């Protein structure tokens, strides 16, 4: 290796060391991560802690705020045609956008994968809603042709159901009939998240839409708004399995 200035050749020895947080006064080497004792011995840097403290306090105050009370537990469930949690979130998104924002929506489609935790029975904190919906996805209304909507219905049928609202899907009926039950218009207004609208969770039927209407409302903010509203009215949160998606048995 030729160097311009000092013309030295270089010997490099690389020592790769993973340092575990439980390190005491000297460095420990380990080939496993989990069997280290954690971590009452680890010093907390005073300056860093001082920097974090006001942010944490303010955040905790906000996150620990009880924003609603739920009458029932709404568990995160997989492989079900409909879930209490999915129905709850889809219905409230539909309601917020149509009733509060006065936008036209024929149908709402979200995805189970995007609902990240169960809601417990009893007090619901703001932090719990952040756990349920950590992403900053916004609600959008995708305007699509009936042809695309048929693709959408086939998708929902093939994946065995997703959170929906605005219309029932009885898959014992033909797709054409289901489509007419949603809307007979040439343009269908489908409420979803911008993540799904960009083809997320393989929802490719949302791509190349007729147009897209931005609501600039985050899904999480819609949930929080709904909780606060119901709480103010003295209502507890509810959800039911109402057979909105049915398959051939």
């Amino acid at each position: 290796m030729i160097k311009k200035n000092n013309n030295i050749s270089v010997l490099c020895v690389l020592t790769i060391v993973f340092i575990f947080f439980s390190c005491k006064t000297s460095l420990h080497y380990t080939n496993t991560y989990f069997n280290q004792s954690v971590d009452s011995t680890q010093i907390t840097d005073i300056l860093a802690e001082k920097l974090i403290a006001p942010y944490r306090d303010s955040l905790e105050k906000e996150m620990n705020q009880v924003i609603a009370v739920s009458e029932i537990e709404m568990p995160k469930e997989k492989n079900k045609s409909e879930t209490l949690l999915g129905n709850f979130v889809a219905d409230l998104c539909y309601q917020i956008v149509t009733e509060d924002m006065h936008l036209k929506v024929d149908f709402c489609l979200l995805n189970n994968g995007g609902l990240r935790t169960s809601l417990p029975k009893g007090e619901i904190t703001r932090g719990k809603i952040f756990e349920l919906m950590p992403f900053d996805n916004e609600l959008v209304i995708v305007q699509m042709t009936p042809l695309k909507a048929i693709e959408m219905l086939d998708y929902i049928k093939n994946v065995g159901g997703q959170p929906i609202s605005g219309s029932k899907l009885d898959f014992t009926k033909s797709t054409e009939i289901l489509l007419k039950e949603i809307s007979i218009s040439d343009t269908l207004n489908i409420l979803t998240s911008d993540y799904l609208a960009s083809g997320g969770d393989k929802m490719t039927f949302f791509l190349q839409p007729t147009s897209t209407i931005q609501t600039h409302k985050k899904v999480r903010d819609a949930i929080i708004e709904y909780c606060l509203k119901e709480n103010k009215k003295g209502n507890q949160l509810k959800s039911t399995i109402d057979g909105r998606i049915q398959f051939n048995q």
Partner: protein
Amino acid sequence: MGEYSLINRRNFLKSAVIGSGGLLFLSSLPEKLLANTEKTTQITILHTNDVHSHIDPFPKNDPKYPNMGGAARRASLIEKIRSQEKNVLLLDAGDIFQGTPYFNKYGGELDFKLMSLMQYDVATIGNHDFDNGIEGLKNMLPHAHFPFVNCNYDFSQTILYNYILKYKLFEFEGLKIGVFGVGVELEGLVSKNLYGETKYIDPVLTVQQTATHLKKEEHCDLIICLSHLGYSYNENKISDIILAKNTKYIDAIIGGHTHTFLEKPTEIKNIEQKMTIINQVGWAGIFLGRIDFYLTNKKSDKYYRSSIA
């Protein structure tokens, strides 16, 4: 220099000489080498990736990482290493943002302030660092008292133009270290309205151009690539492994994106049959990666040791 005693302090476990002329992998530093360390310069690289706004440790009842991580602990660990070592570089391989309400509420302000407090030297950009748009990233930059590097995003049509460096040079005791960055394809991963007019450039060619520039024009003694491409994929998608195999002059790739916990660094023979190592330390700041480079003026061989068996 204090390196001699430092080397003796440590127990190295694994031994395998790969070949001469390239990077060698040794279990214990040969006595001969230890005897010749008068002109050895130690450079300590500390690194994180995919911290994802994990400011606080995981809760004590977390099923996977109970009471692990935490920025204030990382800060004290880094401070301790700085007090022991003379030449320290602190790097981050991207996805600093998104993952806890700290990001939702403060938009990365606290993350950057903490990294500045810890004196990070340079970071690269991950896909989640676009989660509040390029504007959201730009607005937070004043809180970051360290530069960002990337060589394969063309920001020229965006407000980030001139804010992101292609590479950053460091000098320790006359030795030059070049650190550059490479990012993952944004289309399909990040909403277009967030990354805007940022153009993704195929990594292999532009990475090689940057590495060659650092080697031939800047005469770097050590070249480090901060990558947010991801460690490897089942499909034939560009990754750190593929990048290492198809390039030259890169000594180490510090990776991210795939949240890969490497039990030991991966050794790849690059296009010149020389060794490039890849390291990645999971996510959420529950580990701090450390690489010590020992550079001397005695030999032209490069040696590489790992304690991780």
